[in-house]
C-alpha cells in the first residue's frame, strides 16, 4: 500500500504564471516519456521480477516517480493560476482550457491523451530493464528540451532536479540489469526469459 506525505519531494514556488510554458511542461505529466508513464511502467513490471533487490528498486523508483508526477502537476498548476480569458486566448492555452478549464489532465504537449501504450511491461527482466534505462534517457532528453525553452529560474530549479533524478535512476537500473545478468543460469547462454520457467527446461 501507499502512504501520503503532505509535502513535495522538491519545493515548487512559481510566482509568475505562464500558460504557454505550462502546455509544454504538461508533457512530463501525461506524455510518452512523462512521470505518470514512468510510475506505472515500474510499478507494473515489479510483480514478475524474480530478484528481490530489483523488485525493490522498481517499487522505490516507481514510488519516487509518483512524487515527480506531483511536482510536475504543482508546476503546471502554479503556471496557470489567476488567468484572464484574454491571457488564455493569447497564450494558446485555450485549446486545453476548453476541455479542462484549469484542471490537471494527463496529456502530451501536442494534445495526445495519456495511454498505457506509452510503456511496456513484458514479463522478462532483461527486456523490462533495458526499456527502463531507455525510458530514463528519454525523460532526460525531454527535460533538456524543456530547459531550453524556460527562462524563469523559479521553473528551471525543480525541472533541473527532475532531470538529475533521471540520470540517477538510469544508473540504478543499469545496476539492476547487472544483478539480473549475474543471476542468470550459466546454461542459459542466450538469456532466455529467466522469469518464465517453461523456457528453462
Amino acid at each position: 500500500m501507499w502512504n501520503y506525505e503532505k509535502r513535495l519531494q522538491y519545493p515548487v514556488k512559481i510566482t509568475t504564471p505562464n500558460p504557454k510554458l505550462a502546455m509544454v511542461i504538461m508533457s512530463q505529466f501525461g506524455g510518452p516519456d512523462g512521470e505518470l508513464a514512468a510510475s506505472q511502467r515500474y510499478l507494473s513490471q515489479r510483480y514478475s521480477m524474480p530478484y528481490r533487490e530489483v523488485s525493490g528498486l522498481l517499487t522505490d523508483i516507481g514510488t519516487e516517480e509518483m512524487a515527480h508526477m506531483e511536482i510536475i502537476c504543482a508546476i503546471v498548476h502554479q503556471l496557470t493560476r489567476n488567468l484572464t480569458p484574454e491571457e488564455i486566448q493569447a497564450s494558446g492555452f485555450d485549446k486545453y482550457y476548453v476541455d479542462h478549464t484549469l484542471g490537471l489532465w494527463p496529456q502530451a504537449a501536442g494534445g495526445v491523451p495519456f495511454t498505457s501504450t506509452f510503456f511496456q511491461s513484458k514479463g522478462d527482466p532483461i527486456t523490462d530493464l533495458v526499456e527502463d534505462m531507455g525510458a530514463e534517457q528519454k525523460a532526460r532528453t525531454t527535460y533538456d528540451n524543456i530547459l531550453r525553452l524556460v527562462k524563469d529560474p523559479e521553473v528551471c530549479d525543480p525541472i533541473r532536479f527532475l532531470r538529475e533524478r533521471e540520470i540517477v535512476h538510469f544508473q540504478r537500473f543499469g545496476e539492476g540489469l547487472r544483478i539480473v545478468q549475474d543471476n542468470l543460469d550459466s546454461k542459459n547462454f542466450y538469456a532466455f526469459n529467466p522469469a518464465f520457467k517453461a523456457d528453462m527446461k
Partner: protein
Amino acid sequence: MSDRQQCMQRIYELGFAMDEAILFLDTHPCDTEAMEYYNQMQQKYHRAYDEYQQKFGPLNARDVNCGNRWAWVELPWPWELEGC
C-alpha cells in the same frame, strides 16, 4: 524564510538524502558505509519530521492530533504556492 519554511527545508534535504540512500541500498544491499549513512539520515529525518508536526501540523493523515478539529485539511496542500 519563516520558521515553518526552515523546518520544511530540513525535511526536503534529509528526505532527499534518504531517497538517495534507499535506491543505492536496493542495488548494494551489503554496503556497510551506505547503511551507516542511511541510519544517520533516518535519525535526523525523524527528528525534523516530528518537530515539524508538533509545531506546524500533520504531514500524514495518520499523525493527526485529533482534538475538536480536523487539522489535516486546514493547512495548505503542497501544490499551493503557500504550501511549499
